[in-house]
Structure formats: C-alpha cells, structure tokens
C-alpha cells in the first residue's frame, strides 16, 4: 500500500459541480453527447466532438485499461499519474493506487476507486 500524497483540492465550477458531487458519492460522472453519441472527457457543457449542447451526465462503468503511466519518483511520496482508457472510450488523466508501481504495465485492466482529500474524493484507479 502506498502512503497518500497531498492532494490539491479541485476548484469546481457550476459546469463541473456535478462531477465532483458524484465523486463524493463514489461515482464517476462522464458527459455523453446525444447528438454525436460519444462520451468526452474532461466534462463540458458543449460537446468538443460536434459542438452540440445536447450533453448529459452518465455514470461510467468504472472500468478501463492503462494507456500510459509515469511514477513520480521525485516527490515526497512517490505517486503514479496515468492515462486510463475508459470502457466508454475517452482517455482520462488519473492516478494508479493500491499497487506495486514496479509491477504495473501498460495495457493492464483497472477499476475505479477513490482517494480522499479534505472535503471530497478523487476518482482514481487500481490495477486488477
């Protein structure tokens, strides 16, 4: 188990409040566009794929694979940032937790979990 690092708390906007509220309830809320039928990440009011304003929140399945990762060795508590290829399609910048960083591999399956910070939770992933 890795010790936890200091997390810089997010500053939600009216546009993203739902994302962070869902995270507090241990859900990963993605934006889905009913016009082009695609998810996007990070969440926006207007779809960056087709510029439609017909976007809605949908909970992610919470599964994905590691597309790339980097262990930050030059940090008081080493941690891993990663791009997770979500089952819904988009790559999401997140963290890998609850794992031996030396055994993690690109392509490995991951599942959603949450890291705590003062006043909220961060959607992160643990290798399967």
């Amino acid at each position, binding site marked *: 188990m890795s010790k936890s*690092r200091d*997390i*810089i*708390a*997010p*500053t*939600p*906007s009216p*546009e*993203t409040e739902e994302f*962070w509220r869902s995270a507090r309830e241990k859900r990963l809320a993605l934006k889905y566009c009913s016009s082009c039928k*695609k*998810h*996007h*990440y*990070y969440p*926006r009011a207007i*779809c*960056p*794929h087709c510029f439609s304003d017909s976007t809605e929140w949908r909970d992610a399945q919470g599964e994905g694979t590691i*597309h*790339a*990762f*980097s*262990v*930050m*060795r*030059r*940090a008081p508590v080493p*941690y891993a*940032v*990663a*791009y997770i290829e*979500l089952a819904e*399609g*988009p*790559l*999401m*910048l*997140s*963290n890998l937790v609850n794992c031996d960083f030396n055994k993690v591999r*690109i*392509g490995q399956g991951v599942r959603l979990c949450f890291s705590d*910070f003062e006043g909220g939770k*961060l959607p*992160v992933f643990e290798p399967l």
Partner: protein
Amino acid sequence: MSIRDQAYIAGIYEHPTRKASDKSVAQLHAESALGALRDCGLSAADVDGYFCAGDAPGGVQMIEYLGLNVRHYDGTEAGGTSYVLDVGHAAQAIAAGKCNVALITLGGRPRSEGVATGTTPRIYNISAPDVQFEAPFGATLVNLYAMSAARHMHQFGTTSEQLAWIKVAASHHAQHNPNAMLREVVTVEDVVNSPLVAEPLHRLDCCVISDGGGALVVVRPEIARSLKKPLVKVRGAAEAVKHSAGGQIDLTSSAAARSGPAAFAEAGVSPKDINYVSIYDSFTITVLTQLEDLGFCAKGEGGKFVADGNLISGVGRLPFNTDGGGLCNNHPANRGGITKAIEAVRQLRGEANAAVQVKDCRLALVNGIGGGALANKHCSATLILERE
C-alpha cells in the same frame, strides 16, 4: 498571402547571464533588446512593432518601460514557443505593412526565484477549464511529458538509451559554449544512471533551469539589405495546436506534425534540404517526437534516428542545438524558443562556435513546443530560415 521572403531576422541577442538575482525581469528584457538592436545596428527609435509573451511583466507595461513608440503590438502567449511563433507573426505584420522593425523580447528569473519548474503542478489560471482535472491528480509538466515517453516506448520500442543520445549530443555541443550552464560531456550511461524524476525520464533527460533573456529583431527586406549582417530570411512559418480532443489523444505525436508540413510547403523545401535544426528540448522526448513529426524520420523511428551521435555537429547527419540547447546551455524563463531561433541565425551567419559550425549552412529549421505539455496540449511553431 505568403510570408515567404517578406521578412529577415536582422538582430539577435542571447543574454549571457544564467543567474540574474541582481536584475529585474523587465531589465532582462531591456538588456536583451539593446543587445539585439546593437547586433544589427538599429536603435529603439527604429522599432515600430513589439512582440512579447507570458514571461513579460505586462506587454503594454514593457512598451512603456522600453520607451517604444509602436504601431503594432502582439502579446500572443504560447509558452516557450511564443518567440518562434512571433517571428512568423512579425513576418505577417511586415508583409501587411503594419510595421517595419519588429522587436521580440524574453526574460525571466526562475532560477533565482527558486521555481519548482515541472515537478509540482503549476496553476497559472485557476479558471482554466483543465486545471481541476489535472492538478488534483498531481499532473506536472515532467510527468505529462514522461507519459508521452512511456507510450512511445510501449508502441515503438524506443529505449531510455536512445533518448539519452539526445542529451549526449547536446553536451558535445555545450562543451564549446563558454556561457553554457552544463559544459561537461556526458555519456549514455551518465544519463540513464542519473536519478529518475518521473519514469521513464531521468534527471539528465530534463532541461536546465536558468535565468536569462533573449531578443530578436525582424525587419522588412529593404531594411535588412541596408544593414551589415549576413542576410537571414524567413522562408516559411507555421503554427498548430494539439489538444486532448475530448479524450481521443495520441500521446506520441505533437502539433509539429501539422506546423512542420505547412512551413515546408510555404518554403518550398523538404526535410532533406535542411542543414541544421534547432529543436525545442524541454526534455529528450520532446526532441525525438518533433524530429519524427517534422519528417526527418518515420513515426516510431526516432529512437534509431537520434542514436549513435546522429545529432552531433560534424559527426551525424542532422546537427541540432549547437549551443547546447535547453538541455545544457540555457532555458531562460523556462522558455526555450528564443534561444532556438538565435542559434539557427548564428549557424546561418557562420557565427556559431567554430567547433560546431555547420559548413555552408544555408537552410535551417526551428521548431518550438509550448503552452502546455507534449502529451495533451501545446502549440507548435515551425520556422524555415535561409541564408541569402
């Protein structure tokens, strides 16, 4: 309208300081401006266009501080590539008759100010829409670049040793530069045995942190011909922006894949015609990715291309960053674009350090990446310069 042959880089200056605790940021801009104007024999009274970026302590304030009287002002911010982009924008302004003598300045003191460049999240603007989806996860410049390297290794088999050759080549050049921060020649082993910062990038895969400044003077052809310096013409220029596209990201490519071909098309030349390249080198992976995207080798072949000294002047096929680049010489204000343009002009004039001067250097390419990270968002600006 093309800017081809419409403007010349007449004046250049790289501030010799690498630690400027005794100078203000505005002063570094001004001393650099004075150096570049003296270099070409013009004065501040001749300047009618001013270009600066995010390192300037206010663009209008800088015009006031320098005492300029301009009819064209451009404060476009594109991070470290801003000044490469500015040369193209200055050429456009000159071609459109909006100015005759454009001054571009940079200056900053991240070293004296002890900025933890790259290794802690830097929040420039808390309302920027990406910040809350990056900073809480501990995304920094170095680990975002590192993920591009990790993915490149996974997809194409690129190795840490191949990346190390980029630093090795830069160090071979820096040994001849008396102003370079790091003048010691290093080996592939030195690079891969240096401490990991963000895997797979080591300490020696990262550029230096230096105080400093630089300036460029871009002028219309008649003015360039009236001055004493060898003529260095802007033959092509282009820019492009890569971003995370709603999550459909290719971590291994840069916006140089679009700015490069556009600049080559404007210049009417191709990669094989280029005698020297200045390539933005915030990290070794930055160089490798741009070389591929600019067409100096095929995508995925960058590791083989940079290995075995291919970027060392007098040794390899494509001499690069002969001042030692950001990896060894200077990365003033955490922005390496202006020094890239300056060294390319030195090469074309025949004013590079003798040991690294490329023989009969006629065509040079400058490429910068800035305003974000290689992995997910940045601007690329490409310049093709020709000695007339």
